[in-house]
């Protein structure tokens, strides 16, 4: 039961990643693509945490945190670029 729910959850998250990639491909302009990138990073981060749980190693959560910090910076710098502030 628990395994089935978790498997379903991970597959749902990966399907969400595919939807975000559709916007990434189609999205007019760089700003829409940056939104898609933001959403993708927000989707993949819990997937990493879920994989950490699956493998039972807490140290994998460090990777998720680094991932969060750096993707936040990527999106913010894209925004500042579009705002001509970089």
């Amino acid at each position, binding site marked *: 039961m628990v395994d089935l729910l978790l498997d379903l959850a991970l597959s749902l998250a990966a399907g969400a990643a595919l939807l975000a990639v559709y916007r990434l491909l189609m999205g007019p302009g760089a700003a829409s693509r940056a939104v898609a990138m933001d959403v993708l990073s927000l989707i993949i981060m819990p997937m990493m945490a879920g994989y950490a749980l699956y493998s039972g190693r807490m*140290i*994998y959560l*460090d*990777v998720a*945190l*680094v991932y969060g*910090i*750096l993707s936040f*910076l990527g999106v*913010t*710098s894209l925004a*500042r670029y579009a*705002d*001509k*502030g*970089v």
Partner: protein
Amino acid sequence: MKQIVAVVALATLAILLWQLAPIAMPSGLGVVAQHYAEHGVQDNRGANLVTSVVVNYRGFDTLGEVTVLFLSVSGAAFVLRRRTGLEVHEPRRASEIVRTGARLLFAPIVLFGTYIFVHGHLTPGGGFQGGAVVASGVLLLLLANKDHPLPHGFLSWTESLSGLGFVAAGLAGLWAGGSFLANRGILPLGTWNQLFSAGVIPVIYTFVGLKVGSELATLLDVMMHAADEEVHQ
């Protein structure tokens, strides 16, 4: 015609890679990997075997990598150096939220980067990753305000002193353990999976982290200002 050739070449490459994939992912360990996996823990007492390989067994390579990074940053700083007398365009200010957020998040991000490279022998990550996180903290300040004053003297002194520290740790290994970067007889090896363990490895990774962090911060600063002056000269 060109496209057909490209598609055929890609298809060939795909088939070859599909054949190669099971070979590239062997089920067992190679001879060298077997040795590291068996002796790594007794030799270095590092919980993260990758760190033992990067800093101890292949420590000389790491010194080379750090040197390459230093040279590339120096080259970039030389080519893109600040020129005076040019009209500097005024960047648009970031909003209040971004500026406050940058001030708020700078310290936690740098702290987390420090955690990454100090715990390099216990958790995944190490000098390069921690240095990149520290530099991203500085980048956040630069994003909020492009002309944020960075302590250039402090950065360059940190960078040079950590490079010296790396070489000094290697020479200490030569003096005490018989080979460059040997991990014997300098610091006690300690207990496995404790913060103060693995001998000289965390010390070296701290040097690497400081060096990489200050180098990347300098590089980002230099590149941002170079872009400005080129556009408006």
